[in-house]
Every structure is written in C-alpha cells, then in structure tokens.
C-alpha cells in the first residue's frame, strides 16, 4: 500500500528551520526507535538478499551453501522465463501506471465539479482500496470466467459470440489481471488527484478564466502544469506498486497459462518455495529492488528538473 505525503495547507510554510539550538543527540534519540526496527527488519534483509544472490543455497541449513559469484545473474540472462516475467512486469507496470493516472485524474476532475452523484462515486470508487488483494483476485476470477459479468456484458452486444475465457487465454490473461488492478486502485488515484486539485492556486485559475481561456485550454495550460508534482508522485506510487505485484497474479492465474502472466515476484516465489533455489530467487529479488529504486531516482531527477524549469 503506497501513499503520498500530506502538506499542511492552512499554515504558511516557512523556509528551512533555523540552525538548531538543540543538541544533535536529541534528534538522533527521536529517530532511534524507528531506525533500529527499520535497520533490523528491512535494511539487514535487503543486504542479506544481495549476499544470498551470490550463493547456491537450498535454504534449509545455514552454512550449507557455496559461493558462486555472479553465476545466478549469468543464468538469468539466458533464462527465457526470467525475460518473460521481466517484460510482463514492465508491461503490467507501464499500463497500470498510465491508465490509473489518466483515469484517476479524469474522475478527480469530474467529482471536483460537484455534479450530482459525485459523493456517491467518490465513496464507491474508493471502497475497493480497503479490500485485501486476495479477495479482489477471487472476485475478479469469477467476474472474468465464462459466465461472469464480463461475458454477460459482451453477450449484450454480441449475443451469438462464444464466451471469452479471459484468464485462460494467453493473450488476454494479463489484461484480466490489469483490469482487476485498475478496479482496485482507480479510487485511490482519484482521491490523490482530487486532493491535488483542492490545493491548486485559485488566482491562476481565475486569471485564466478572465482571459477567456476555454475549459480544455485552462485544464491543459493551468491545471496540468500546476499538478506536475502530484503527477510525479502518483506515477511513482503506481510504478512501485506495479513492480511488486504478487497476490493478484498468484491467486488469479498462478502465472499461467504457460507463463503468460508470470511476473518477477511470482517467479521469485516459485524459485524459492518450489525449487528451493534461494540464490536464484534472491537474484530475481535484487532485480525488483533495483528497478524500484531506479524508478524513485528517476522521479527525484525529474522533480528537480521541473523545479529548475520554473
């Protein structure tokens, strides 16, 4: 579950706090509890994963391993299933990130207009965010089967058509998983953009409307540029979410049919818990970690360039 930070809106922001008169150890004492837990149960495991990715280890007995250097990564380069799950992960991430951003933004604009039904839509669209991905997956497996809602809908327009078995078709299964993801997270993206819209500089918008700029033009030239930071943050959240997708795929398709929905996290899980190949599993985990961190670095770069530009 990812999230964007709040910014106090009513209180004027003051530039960097003056050089602290409080001793340095005090700040350190405040952050210490967090740093200890975080270091023990997150940083240490990440370092360990990096280490294990250099080993050949069945995972049962500590010490029962051999050092193989970069062999796991070399094996990865020649492993077609790895590349399949790699491209699937990227495809899933890009599609969900782009669509969630656009659709979330569109809904935010709509409910910001406060037409009738806005409140209902805001609550209803947000509801799926509260559900566990496992439940969402079970729901959508049923909705996408031969007699589920999707085929009932198709039958409305093409009564003669044979039912489409979305999750059983290698060309459509990934799309099925993507649809379930969109369903769950559209409301969340909507809420983030809606929040962004609430914080827009009012004077700029009014100036635009006095200038006689049309609705479309004012959205394009005033709203969107002011939302660049929000877009960046929401995009990053979606990308991170996409790169680590596991539960949905695992329950909906088990990575099938024939690996057509295999993603990095499910392939890693298979290597670790089915084949007991902890070294290779850790190497795949490293790929997920590196991809996620790169996305964050890109976002920070992009963010600072936007600020420089104006």
């Amino acid at each position, binding site marked *: 579950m990812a999230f964007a930070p709040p910014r106090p809106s009513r209180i004027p922001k003051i530039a960097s706090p003056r050089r602290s008169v409080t001793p340095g150890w005090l700040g350190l004492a*405040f952050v210490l509890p967090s740093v200890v837990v975080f270091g023990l149960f997150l940083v240490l495991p990440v370092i360990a994963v990096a280490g294990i990715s250099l080993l050949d280890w069945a995972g049962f007995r500590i010490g029962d391993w051999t050092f193989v250097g970069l062999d796991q990564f070399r094996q990865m380069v020649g492993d077609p299933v790895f590349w399949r799950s790699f491209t699937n992960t990227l495809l899933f991430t890009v599609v969900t990130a782009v669509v969630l951003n656009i659709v979330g933004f569109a809904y935010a604009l709509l409910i910001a207009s406060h037409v009738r039904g806005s409140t209902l839509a805001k609550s209803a669209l947000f509801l799926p965010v509260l559900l566990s991905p496992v439940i969402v997956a079970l729901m959508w497996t049923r909705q996408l089967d031969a007699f589920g809602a999707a085929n009932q809908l198709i039958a409305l327009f093409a009564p003669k058509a044979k039912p489409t078995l979305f999750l059983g078709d290698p060309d459509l299964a990934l799309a099925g998983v993507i649809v379930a993801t969109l369903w769950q997270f559209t409301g969340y993206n909507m809420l983030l953009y809606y929040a962004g819209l609430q914080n827009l500089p009012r004077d700029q918008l009014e100036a635009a409307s006095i200038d006689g700029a049309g609705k479309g033009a004012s959205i394009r030239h005033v709203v969107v540029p002011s939302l660049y930071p929000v877009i960046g943050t929401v995009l990053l959240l979606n990308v991170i979410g996409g790169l680590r997708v596991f539960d949905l795929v695992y329950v909906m398709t088990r990575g099938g049919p024939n690996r057509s929905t295999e993603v990095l996290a499910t392939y890693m899980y298979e290597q670790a818990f089915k084949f007991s190949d902890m070294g290779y599993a850790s190497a795949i985990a490293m790929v997920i970690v590196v991809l996620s961190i790169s996305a964050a670095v890109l976002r920070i770069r992009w963010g600072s360039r936007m600020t420089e530009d104006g």
Partner: protein
Amino acid sequence: MIDRYTHPVWRVTASAFLIVSACIALAPIIWVVGLSLRSGPDVYSRSVVPKSLRPENFLDAWNQFGLGPLFLNSLVVTTVSVAVAVTASVLAAYGFARLKFRGSEVLFLVILLGLMIPPAAVIIPLFVEIRALGLYDTHIGLSLVYVAFGLPISILVLRSFFAGIQRELLEAARIDGATEIRILWRVVVPIAKAPIATVSILMFLFCWNDFFLALVLLRDQGTYTLPVGIAQFIGQYSTPYELVAAAVIIAAVPVFILYLVLHRQFQQGVAEGAVKQ
C-alpha cells in the same frame, strides 16, 4: 474554477457517468455479499440473482472457521503494530523535520528507499532472522516486521506535515521551558490529527489484510491471523465458497468501521498532502 461547469446537458451526462461508475465499482462487492447468502447448488449457479437466502452462513462460518480466536489474533497483531509504528514514526518524523542532526537527511533518504522494497523480495533472510531471534511463530515477530515495512510511508507522511508547522508555535513552547517531547505531545500531535489518522488507516489496512508474511512467519493454528486462518479452508479439490465469502465479509467489518469513523480525517490527510514531497 473547475467546479463551474454549468451547462445542464453536461451536468446530467457527468452525473449519469459517475453513477454508472459507482455501480461498476460496487458490483463485485455486491456479488460477494450475494454469494455469502447462497446455499446448496445455488452456490455454483450461474444466475446473477441468488435463488436462496441463508444468513445462517455467517454463523456457520464463524463457528466452523473458528473466527473468534482468529479475530482476536488479528486484532492484537494489528493494534500493536499500528500503535508502535505510529508512535515510532511520530517521534522519527519530528526528529527528521525539527531536530535535524548531522546525517539526518541521508538517514531519511535511506528510510524512504524502504518504500521501494516489497516484503516478498526479502522474505528468505527475514525468515532466517526472525527464526534466529526466537521470534518465529510469535505475534511480536510478525508485528516487528509489519512495523518495519510500515515505517517509511508513515515517516514520509508525518515528516512533511511537521516540517510545515509554524516555527513561532514551537518557539513559544520552548521559551516556556517545555521539553521537545512535551512540545511534540502537547503542541504538534493535537494539530496533526489528520495525518496521524491517515497513517493509522494505511498501517491498519496493511496489517489486517496481509497474508504472505503471516503465512510464512506464523506456524501454529493458535497464532493465525484472519487471512491465514480463512485460507486454511480453501481445499485442493473443493472449497465451501459461500462460507469463505461470509468469513471474508466478517473479516472486512473492522476495516469498514475504521474507515467510516476516520474517513474525514483520512481524506483531509490525503487532501493536505498530495502536492509536495
């Protein structure tokens, strides 16, 4: 402003579209509720409207799945994790925002990178470590892991709020001779209800819905949390789907209650923050 769309045709179209969207969003949830009330062959029937109505499913699910102890376990693990994570992250966020020290920026950045790490990616060493500390199959072990994974987002949210608080407010308290911990408790926390509520809900959702970490880190039936406990009844060849659906709904009740109680603060927390990082 954007809300000045006045043309009636546009407003009606927009309303209709929003209402249809709401229905699409709700349909699968309503379907699960329907399933939880079905019985006999109706469980597998293809008809959209249930032919049977059996509220006793909820009672059966509660008894057969032993939801009582599962509920208690989930409640204990989640409450403790949320309490610890929120307390620790309020302290840390205040430290990072207001009591900067040498290296605090770097440390904060490292914690932010924690946001990028999926639990599944580190499950193997995490398991080995929990085991080595003697915390395998304990709620404390599971809670500590939840806290570690919940901290980055909590600290991020709270820190940017704390950084925006007027300096005069804090200075006044300092001149009165208040200690930093007292300032945090008496001045900062009371005005930070919205972000704290936001962080609490996110943390609650994460702990309450987690399946994977609990599956690997808990061993005995007596320690299971709800998602793991319910999963026990999904069979290889057959599954009592109507009871699973009922159990899933029962399990979701606290989440909905929490959201209903705190949704105003939650939305405000989101609203106040989506702009700047």
